[in-house]
């Protein structure tokens, strides 16, 4: 029993479970929803889960914010620094970049949806698939009879 429900293990790894739940939620929305905007929302949740994963691995237990102590001349005070544990700031910096990329992706996706709405008059994937199937059928009726209908 204790091996199955090792509470300490679960508590220590809570952020990983959170990450995986969020990630799967996002992926599921992307795959399942037919509304194009909802897909973008799912994609956002998926990306945010990765941001949280990165930020959580930067934490050093007992660590404080990585701001170096300064003396009155604004030089780094190395004496005050000794003995302080700092969290790792690098993953946070990486994620700043990834957030920018995420925003760019979202805005581009939404812009495409606006254009799709103008061109197809719907933002539902199933409707669009139907319209595209009709277009393909039309194309084939028009051009597909080359080579004795074998093409």
């Amino acid at each position, binding site marked *: 029993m204790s091996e199955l429900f090792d509470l300490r293990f679960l508590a220590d790894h809570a952020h990983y479970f959170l990450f995986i739940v969020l990630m799967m939620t996002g992926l599921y929305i992307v795959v399942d929803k037919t509304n194009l905007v909802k897909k973008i929302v799912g994609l956002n949740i998926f990306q945010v889960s990765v941001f949280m994963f990165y930020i959580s691995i930067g934490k050093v237990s007992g660590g404080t914010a990585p701001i170096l102590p300064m003396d009155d001349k604004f030089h780094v005070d190395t004496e005050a620094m000794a003995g302080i544990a700092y969290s790792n700031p690098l993953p946070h910096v990486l994620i700043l970049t990834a957030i920018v990329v995420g925003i760019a992706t979202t805005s581009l996706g939404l812009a495409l949806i606006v254009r799709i709405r103008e061109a197809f008059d719907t933002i539902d994937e199933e409707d669009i698939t139907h319209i595209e199937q009709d277009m393909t059928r039309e194309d084939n009726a028009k051009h597909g009879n080359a*080579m004795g209908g074998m093409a």
Partner: protein
Amino acid sequence: MAVEPHTVEHTARTLMDHLPVLQVLIPFCTGPIIVFLGSRRLAWPLAFVASALSLIVSLMLLWQVKDGGYIAYTLGGWEPPLGIEYRIDAANAFVLMLISLIGTITLPYALISVADEIKRRDHTLFYACWMLCFTGLLGMVATADAFNVFVFLEISSLSTYVLVAMGADRDRRALTAAYDYLIMGTIGATFFVIGLGMIYMATGTLNMADIADRLADQGANRTVRSGFAFVIVGMGLKIAMFPLHLWLPKAYVFAPSAVTVFLAATATKAAIYVMLRFTFSVYRPEFTYATNTLEMIFLPLAVIAMFSASFVAAFQTNFKRMLAYSSVAQIGYILLGVAILNETGLTAGIVHLFNHGITKALMFMGVGAFVLRAGGSFYAQIAGLGRQMPLTGAALVIGGLSLIGVPGTAGFISKWYLVQAAFERAPDNPMYLAIAVSVVLSSLLAVVYVWRAFEAMYLMAPATDIRAKEAPLLMLVPMWVLAIACIWFGIDTDLIAGAAAQAAAGLFEGSQGMLEMKGAVH
């Protein structure tokens, strides 16, 4: 106590020392300049000059590293692992050369094709986007910093989505093609980042050589393995590795012709390079998890791709869509070479990466010329056009022969290496005999689908009475440069095969090569 600022010895640097970063920086700066100038007349010349300069830079880089060795460049003078490092060796100099070569050859072609297919007011932004896409592809190949790869990957991907969507002026399905690509591409890139996060957890560094160093010390554990899996799946989506290729046919068919030429020849190739770098340099060949992945997963998937995608291609009614499926099959050949896991196989993969790049660029250029004259790429629309446009038709025939792998064309060389690599492994494992046979058999499928296009071009009666004019000179010249290259590299194999063998040897040394390089830095 205050820390004294370090005194750094100043050494004068020449432009030659900055070549690795110039490779990326030239197109990167040109994109915004085009936007700020906002002039439609200046956009194309600027883009062309930037591409030509990139080509010169990449040739100079390849010249320096073609006999082994590498160039390390630290951005801003910050030493790795703190700073970002660019590292040019034979493998990535080769891919940089391919990308800038295709970029430079495609732009003259694009001038007329884009004017025909895209609204005038979008031209400036189109070339700006093109430059950004070019930058992203060059950057993800040049860099030696794992997270930097992601940043450049996204630069190239985001601009690619825009470029694909530009096809909407001709067919509104380009929009949904771009949207689907955006969803799949973002999932792929995010998987790649998750993988990097896990590698970072295990090693605490992002510099590739440093990661290789620390992975060698700690051996395999679950974090390292899942990191590898995420990186490979993420890149697999970008490569369009079967069965992650679903975005590719639609994106290639509905994108503007020039964009298809550029993407087919470069985008998937840059992603393949990143995958090779991770499997062979960051993780080492001795890391059995990686090699098992290649053998157990890549090998069967590559063979399935070769057959199934070729089979699907044979049933298409649209020339462009046929070529898109053929691309999926050809990517199968490249991955097969890599998965055979010997130096000849890796050489075959890299040679085919180049040969398929120029061949497919040539084919898509020919189709683009037909689209310009006939308004579409269905076989019924291009019927008889090979006779009416003899120069375009002849170039397409050369491309088609190279796609099949007929002796005397570039495609033959890569398939020769591929079969040779399979035979080298055959004494230990008879399965590789079957693989050698399957390379030949799937080439026969290529005969079928290429023949159908030839039949439409030459043997079918034209759809209309109006005679189509030959393609304009600006399109013919790039086409024929590539057609001659297809034959040239099919006869003179020293240049490409030599560079590819050097690249393969460098990669196959794996982290050992990386570690020795690292030693050389200090």
